[in-house]
C-alpha cells in the first residue's frame, strides 16, 4: 500500500473514532437535561 494512502486511511479512522466520540460526548453533554438542584425541586 502506498505511504500516502496508508496515512490517509489512518487519518480517516482517527477522524471517525476520535472525532465522532468527542462530538457525541459534547452533544450528549449539551442536550441531556440535568436534574435540578434539590433546593429548586418542587415541594410536595
Amino acid at each position: 500500500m502506498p505511504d500516502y494512502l496508508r496515512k490517509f486511511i489512518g487519518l480517516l479512522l482517527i477522524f471517525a473514532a476520535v472525532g465522532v466520540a468527542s462530538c457525541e460526548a459534547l452533544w450528549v453533554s449539551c442536550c441531556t437535561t440535568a436534574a435540578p438542584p434539590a433546593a429548586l425541586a418542587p415541594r410536595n
Partner: protein
Amino acid sequence: MGRLLLLAGAVLISLTALMLLLKRRIRTMAERYQQTPGRFPSTRGILMFLLPLPVLFAAVASLARGDLGGLFDNAIGYGLFLGGALLLRRGLRLEAEYDRRRVAKAPWPLKTLGGGVIALATGLTAWSGAHYPPAMAGAFGLVALLGCYLSYGFDPRIAKRFTDRDGVDVTNRVLEALTQAETSIAAIEQTTRDIRNAELNSRLRRIVALARRILTLLEEDPRDLRRARKFLNVYLDGAKQVTEGYAKTHGRVAMPELEDNFRRVLATIEEVFQEQQQKLLEADVTDLDVQIEVLTTQLKREGVI
C-alpha cells in the same frame, strides 16, 4: 440528524483529502530547501491535540449545568487524550532523531504508548461521555488505535549499530561521546545566560552554534569521531570550564584584564572550532574524491569508459 451527520462526514473526508494533498505539495516544494534530512516537522501530531477539543467543551458544558458526573468523565477523557497526544508527539520527535542519526539506540516506544492511551481515551469517552454500550465503545477504541498505527506507524525497534575498521561494535562509545559533547554544549549555553556582556555573549553564542554544527557532522558520520577526538576531549571541555570559571568570577570582582583574557581565549576557541568544522568537511570531500576515483578506475578496467 442522520442527514447532518452524513454531510459532516462528507465535509470531513474532503477536508482531510485536501489537507493531505496540500501537505504533499508543500513538502515537494520545500524539499529543495531542506538541509538536514529527518528534521522534525513542527505540525506533526498536532491533530491529536485539536480533535478531542469537543470533550473539553463537553466538560465545560457539564460544569455549567452542574453535572458533576459528566464533568468528571469528560475531564478524565480529555486528560487522557492530552497525555496520549503528548506521548505521541514526543515519540515522533524521538523517531525523527533516530532517523537523522547514523548511530542510535532504539527509542522508547512512546508513539505506540501514545496511540494506546489515545485509544483508551476514545473508548472511555464513547462509553461514559457519549453513552455507547461497552462493546461499541471498545470498537471505537480499536478503530482509534488502528488509525494511529496507520497514520503514525509503530516505533523503530532496531538499534543502528556502528562498527569500527576492526569490526568491533563501538555504538555505546560513540553515543557516550556524543552525549557528553551535547552536555558540554548545553552547559556553555546555560552559563552564557549568567554573563552580562553583550559582546562576549554573542561570541559565546557563535561558539555554541559552531560546536552544534560540528556535532551534527559527527552524528551524521561517526567515522569522523577519530578525527574530532581532540575537539571533543580537549577544546569543548576546556571551553566549558573556562566559561563557567569566568561566569563565577566576573560577578564578584570587576577585572578588565580578566575580561580581555577571556575575550582572547574565546576568539581562539572560535578559530579552532571553525578549523575543526573545515577539517571535517574537507575529509568528507576527500572521501568522496577517493570513492569517485575508485569507481572511475573500476569502470575503466571494465571498458565502460
